[in-house]
């Protein structure tokens, strides 16, 4: 089966600019996640969708980050305006459903550098 697709793979912007990342999950996976992985740290959950509804966005900095999953398939994560501390790899993952036993399948990630 095709994996989780993410684009762009790399993005360099200046602070206060905006950026958007796109994710296409595995076909049939109802649950989609966005994680932020800062260099030297483990991934941190930003937002979790179940179909097109938000399940958990408690760690999403809502003053600058937004995400949507229209039609319950693809998802977009946007940052506006970006700060230096947003430099990280943004990982998208999907799973069959929200069950705790389900395994997450990750994409290759989108690496953001904010100058």
């Amino acid at each position, binding site marked *: 089966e095709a994996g*989780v697709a993410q684009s762009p793979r790399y993005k360099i912007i200046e602070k206060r600019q905006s950026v958007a990342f796109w994710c296409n999950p595995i076909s049939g996976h109802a649950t989609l*996640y966005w994680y932020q992985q800062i260099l*030297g*740290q*483990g*991934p*941190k*959950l930003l937002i*979790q969708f179940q179909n097109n509804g938000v*399940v*958990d966005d408690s760690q999403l900095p809502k003053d600058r980050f937004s995400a949507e999953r229209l039609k319950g398939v693809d998802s977009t994560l946007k940052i506006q305006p970006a700060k230096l501390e947003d430099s990280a790899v943004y*990982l998208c*993952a999907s799973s069959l459903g*929200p*069950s*705790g*036993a389900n*395994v*997450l*399948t*990750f*994409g*290759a*990630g989108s690496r953001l550098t904010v100058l």
Partner: protein
Amino acid sequence: AQSVAQPEDQVNVAEGNPLTVKCTYSVSGNPYLFWYVQYPNRGLQFLLKYITGDNLVKGSYGFEAEFNKSQTSFHLKKPSALVSDSALYFCAVRDIDGTAGNKLTFGGGTRVLVKP
């Protein structure tokens, strides 16, 4: 709140020797535990998980992990390491009965370097 600790930033081992990567967790309910591996410029790949049943779990690429409830640990092991096992390893936990919902929380990662 749930948390995961990986006490070693890096583990060095000679090829052919046993490999152990340590993980301890903290949850208020019962844990589901996972190990993922990350190779350079790639996403995380699933290795194995503990949900219930036998405390010794076997996974991909010859890896196994042992769930120890009394010590709240889930150490990853491989009897004979390969140079190709060099990567970044992450332990993760879900607290299925606690207040964190189904959130998967990751540890900080352990870099494994296997020398020929």
